[in-house]
């Protein structure tokens, strides 16, 4: 019961329809501009006394869209072209994209597009200046001609999308010598150092200026317009007209030049997102959002909150795993023929990369805490079940046999002899599971479950090592601490004769 209450406690902020009084949940995709816009939305609402909850870098398009649709989140910045292609699966390039997309979203999902912010962030296929000069490149048609001599470094998202490489190959006949999938944070570095020759940038990327790059014109009008706009959940439309009104004040106020400058401050100069957002709002709207607490204090508070949430995720996943895997191990020991197939199957889960497992679970469990817990739980099952099975199976056979021959019941043997003797082995399984879970829980941030993965995801998106370490170091420390705590538990559960005793006979 307590466990269910705990799950409910941490799940509430992310599971759909919530009461009117709950804060407005603002999310973003994991890249600089999206962080910045979301933070601007948040400060805008806070300045009007509306409570907000931030979920920066919560996930890619599919995740945010799924969460918005169920009102698990309330608003995030989206781009018309992405809505058209990635969500509506409409490949046609359309005039009046915004009008079309916003109508379809309203009809199909009850999601509302607010008026565009005023800038477009389209794909900017970029090359080094020397490459452009050598191959005489100024448009995508030129690039297609030279493509067999060039290596492209593209984000995984772009490689798979109809408005990405697939479409480019179809419309322009792009045939790169090689295509390397790159993390968004690394692509500019990779291009500048010559590791690749072509990348997919965003037209508002602050880094385009920094690295002296040439962006190529989309001379056949392949890319749909990518006008940026806040899109809001059905709940917000219904319950918070004042929030909608506040967000609408940004419409048409951000042009491409300003956005690129702001992105540059975040991505190149390394200015803090809240600071840049506050100054941008002041410049654009003439408002001054209340200055928040001192940056250092904020970091410590945030870190404490993230660590607490991380620990809670780990604790719940681990406790549920123990309460399932230990009985399962005991059951398998009673029917040993089933043991290896069942344990083998559980073991197979270990070979699935966690990010892939999380992706598989998206359609079933959606986003947020529940899928994260399910994934962590699945990973924790195997070491505990395996340890319980072999620990109980191998517990002192002579003692077990004698206890049976003397008339103990199976339950008595289990509780008196086998489980206590198996305890050190079971605990080593639990410790293995705990360390795996602490590590795995950092990935929970990719599907919006929070925890120490949040600064890691954010840091990866902003190419900010300090942020990455802010998540990674506490996670590593936590793994040590949890393991250490479990050592004490193990010591307490160790069978009596294995505890060190003074004056033992030998």
């Amino acid at each position, binding site marked *: 019961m307590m466990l269910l209450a705990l799950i409910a406690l941490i799940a509430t902020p992310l599971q759909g329809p919530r009461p009117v009084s709950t804060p407005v949940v603002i999310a973003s995709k994991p890249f600089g501009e999206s962080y910045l816009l979301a933070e601007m939305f948040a400060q805008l609402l806070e300045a009007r006394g509306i409570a907000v909850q931030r979920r920066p870098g919560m996930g890619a398009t599919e995740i945010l869209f799924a969460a918005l649709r169920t009102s698990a989140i309330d608003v995030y910045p989206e781009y018309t072209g992405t809505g058209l292609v990635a969500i509506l699966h409409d490949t046609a390039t359309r005039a009046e994209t915004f009008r079309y997309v916003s109508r379809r979203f309203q009809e199909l999902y009850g999601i509302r597009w607010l008026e565009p912010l005023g800038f477009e962030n389209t794909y900017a296929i970029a090359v080094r200046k020397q490459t452009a000069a050598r191959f005489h490149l100024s448009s995508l048609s030129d690039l297609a001609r030279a493509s067999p001599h060039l290596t492209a470094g593209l984000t995984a998202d772009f490689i798979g999308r109809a408005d990405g490489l697939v479409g480019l190959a179809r419309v322009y006949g792009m045939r790169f010598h090689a295509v390397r999938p790159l993390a968004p944070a690394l692509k500019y570095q990779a291009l500048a150092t010559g590791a690749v020759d072509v990348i997919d940038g965003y037209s508002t990327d602050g880094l385009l200026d920094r690295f002296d790059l040439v962006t190529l014109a989309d001379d056949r009008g392949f890319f749909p317009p990518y006008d940026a706009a806040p899109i809001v959940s059905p709940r917000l439309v219904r319950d918070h007209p004042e929030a909608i009104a506040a967000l609408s004040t940004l419409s048409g106020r951000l042009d491409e030049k300003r956005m690129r400058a702001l992105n540059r401050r975040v991505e190149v100069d390394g200015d803090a997102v809240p600071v840049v957002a506050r100054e941008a709002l002041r410049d654009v709207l003439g408002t001054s959002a209340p200055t928040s607490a001192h940056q250092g204090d904020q970091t410590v508070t945030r870190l404490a909150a993230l660590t607490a949430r991380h620990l809670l995720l780990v604790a719940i996943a681990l406790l549920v795993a123990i309460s399932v895997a230990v009985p399962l191990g005991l059951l398998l020991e009673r029917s040993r023929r089933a043991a290896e197939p069942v344990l083998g199957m559980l073991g197979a889960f270990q070979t699935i990369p966690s990010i892939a497992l999380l992706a598989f679970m998206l359609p079933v469990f959606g986003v947020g805490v529940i899928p994260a817990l399910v994934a962590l739980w699945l990973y924790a099952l195997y070491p505990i079940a395996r340890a319980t099975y072999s620990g109980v199976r191998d517990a002192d056979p002579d003692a077990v046999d*004698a206890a049976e021959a*003397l008339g103990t019941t199976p339950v008595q043997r289990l509780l008196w002899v086998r489980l206590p003797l198996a305890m050190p082995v079971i605990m080593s399984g639990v410790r293995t599971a705990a360390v795996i879970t602490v590590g795995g829980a950092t990935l929970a941030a990719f599907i919006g479950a929070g925890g120490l993965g949040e600064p890691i995801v954010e840091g990866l998106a902003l190419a900010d090592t300090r942020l990455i370490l802010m998540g990674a170091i506490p996670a590593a420390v936590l793994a040590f601490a949890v393991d250490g705590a479990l050592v004490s538990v193990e010591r307490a559960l160790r069978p009596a004769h294995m505890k060190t005793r003074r004056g033992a006979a030998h």
Partner: protein
Amino acid sequence: MIFLSARHVTVRFGATVALDSVSLDAPSGSAVAIVGESGSGKTTLLRCFNRMVEPDSGEIRVGETELRTQNRIALRRRLGYAQQNGGLIPHWTVSANVGLVLRALGRPDRPAVAQVMTLVGLPVETFGSRYPHELSGGQRQRVALARALAANPEAILLDEPFGALDAITRAELQDGFDRLRRQLGITVLFVTHDLGEAARLADLIVVLRAGHVEQRGTIAELRDSPATPYVRTLVERALAQGEPLRLP
């Protein structure tokens, strides 16, 4: 009066016949030894009496009870049991080990534990709170014996109880055991590979070989009129090892 009896007991493990129509009688208050080498089926026969092994055919009785009519667990609590390596529960103290059957029965009884520990020569004050790994091999076997006796069983079954001990400890324990079982008047069925040990401790000996009874009788009968060449060899070998094969 016969207390433990087996009639035409056959046990198969897959294709192997472990016991082939074996019969055995243990009169009330006697000590009966099942003698044989590894694979003779002697442990199998012993374990038929507490239903640790189920015969494929034949009939086994303990007192008036035909075994198949009695619940296994209740039956085992009526019979003491000890095995070669003691089989003590390693994380339980000596007292707890001795009290196992009483605890399983739901009536823990400290005085009874203390009493039976005195009987085997391990006063509870000195040994009660020790753990099995803090005892010598001989002491562990005494604890196993005390555990078998603690709940006042109707008979005890012993599987090579002195098998893993050095010669001096073994002789000492054998003497102690012999006195104790006569004092208690309890029926004992025990398994040994050592005819000398059987001669010292048993009123009756059953020689098993490959699942068959070669001969049953007193040591004097085995010695003076061996029924088969195998029994004769067994007797000669024991004599050669300097065993007196004394008359009971």
